């Protein structure tokens, strides 16, 4: 293997880790600010200008807190669970092209760690593995609320894997590839070429499933504060809890990259403007996660299951069948 390639990959991994760990922190700042403004509050204001250093204060607090392992927990599993959540979130980033390729000091950089030809399958698989964080953490916690949350996490993640997979099956049939770069190139011709116009149902289903996969507000029942405290995070403290947190926010960012790449043209033709457009679309989808949290109520677990198995999955199957017929004739 080429040494330059190895160094480049390591640098890319480090950059992605650092950038998205920092973004997870800044994401919490944006979440608090956006929620505050929508509720006519000011949000964090006292630490630094406009509360910008609140992220640093929270980080210091998380890092210096005592690492408590409660009695009666299954210690090893309890310790490893947050790592699974954070690690799977960042693993999924390996197959996501964050920007078009660009030339830096005469060296062409591809801002994707590994352009594997099964990119989407890999991302979905890794996000499926992400289930083990809440599941193991909740079951190891010796806490009834955590156990409830683990059961809900298993039900929700496995159910919505079905919707995610089936909904993007139709676009995959059209593009004929599982690589996100191929998806992007398929839609490179401009707004008219975007897959959302030919697959609006798949787009909406995937978007809905993204909320379940990241556990955001309409489907926030995995760690629903008002009924099961913090769910699987109840017994965690300090940086272990922080890892769950970073994992959740990193997941939100990565999903916000994947949706535009799949359906909304990604970075288009690869120009500077296209890269900006991808970042803009990502920002919109991230903002939408916060927006819905301010606006929408949570639904019950049984309603969530009803929505998955009786509405979204049949729609996804019908969508795949119709796409198949249209492509055949």
């Amino acid at each position, binding site marked *: 293997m080429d040494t330059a390639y190895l160094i480049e990959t390591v640098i890319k991994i480090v950059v992605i880790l650092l950038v998205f760990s920092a973004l997870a922190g800044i994401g919490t700042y944006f979440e608090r600010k956006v929620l505050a403004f929508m509720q006519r*509050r*000011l949000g964090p204001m006292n630490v630094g200008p406009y509360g910008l250093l609140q992220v640093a204060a929270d980080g210091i607090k998380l890092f210096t807190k005592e690492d408590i392992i409660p009695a009666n927990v299954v210690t090893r599993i309890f310790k490893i669970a947050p790592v699974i959540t954070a690690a799977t979130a960042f693993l999924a980033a390996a197959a996501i092209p964050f920007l078009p390729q660009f030339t830096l000091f005469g060296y062409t950089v591809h801002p994707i760690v590994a352009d594997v030809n099964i990119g989407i399958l890999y991302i979905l698989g890794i996000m499926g593995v992400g289930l083990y964080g809440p599941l193991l953490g909740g079951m190891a916690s010796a806490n009834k609320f955590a156990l409830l949350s683990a059961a809900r996490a298993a039900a929700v993640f496995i159910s919505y894997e079905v919707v995610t997979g089936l909904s993007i099956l139709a676009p995959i049939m059209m593009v004929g590839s599982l690589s996100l770069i191929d998806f992007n190139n398929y839609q490179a011709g401009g707004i008219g070429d975007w897959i959302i116009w030919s697959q609006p149902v798949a787009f909406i289903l995937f978007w809905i499933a993204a909320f379940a996969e990241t556990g955001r507000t309409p489907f926030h029942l995995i760690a629903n504060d008002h009924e099961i405290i913090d769910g699987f995070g109840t017994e965690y403290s300090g940086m272990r809890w922080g890892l769950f947190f970073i994992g959740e926010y990193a997941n939100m960012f990565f999903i916000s990259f994947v949706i535009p790449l799949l359906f909304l043209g990604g970075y288009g033709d690869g120009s500077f403007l296209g890269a900006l457009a991808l970042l803009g679309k990502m920002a919109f989808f991230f903002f939408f996660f916060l*927006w819905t949290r301010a606006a929408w109520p949570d639904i019950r677990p049984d309603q969530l299951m009803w929505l998955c198995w009786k509405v979204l999955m049949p729609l996804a199957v019908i969508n795949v069948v119709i796409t198949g017929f249209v492509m055949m004739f």
Partner: protein
Amino acid sequence: MNNEQFNNRNVTDGYYLVDIEDYPTDGWGKFKRVVKRTFRVELFVGLWVVLREMIKFDIHTVSYPAEKMPIGPRYRAVHEMKRLWESDTERCIGCGLCEKICISNCIRMDTKIDENSRKVVSEYSINLGRCIFCGYCAEVCPELAITHGGEYENASEQREHFIMFEDMLTPIDKMKDGKQLEFEGFGAITPHEDERVKKTPLAY
């Protein structure tokens, strides 16, 4: 601050019964309800409401230590001892009624006869840790000497938080400037009291 909107107690204004249709019982009715709810885009109404508030940026937060809400003149916070307008001496005559009426037993006082053969207060303390700010002391005081004030920031390091006579007394320079405020709340003289004074009926 005006309180006008809170003074309207007529709840029948603008209230109406919401027209709720019956719940569907059969499967077809439930299906129709799902379809109707799906395509009526009610979710986006909620999204628009919160976005509108964000754009309007009509923030209601009071950034507390930097800015404070105005409180009413009748607010019952930490006590004050008033001075006489005529002579600038303290109004308290050491009668002990406030100590007697205090239902949480937080007032303690000691009096003596001074060199002018006048009864004065030598020791006076209120335990704010016990005080429930009921206002009885202010109401019972015959001289309008002890009243409540507007100072509500009485955080303390311990439960027993005593406040002494000298701390409550209006500072003499503030008194000289004529800036002592009369308390309008519990125990104060009602407005137009002079006009309401009647002769004592003597014809039994």
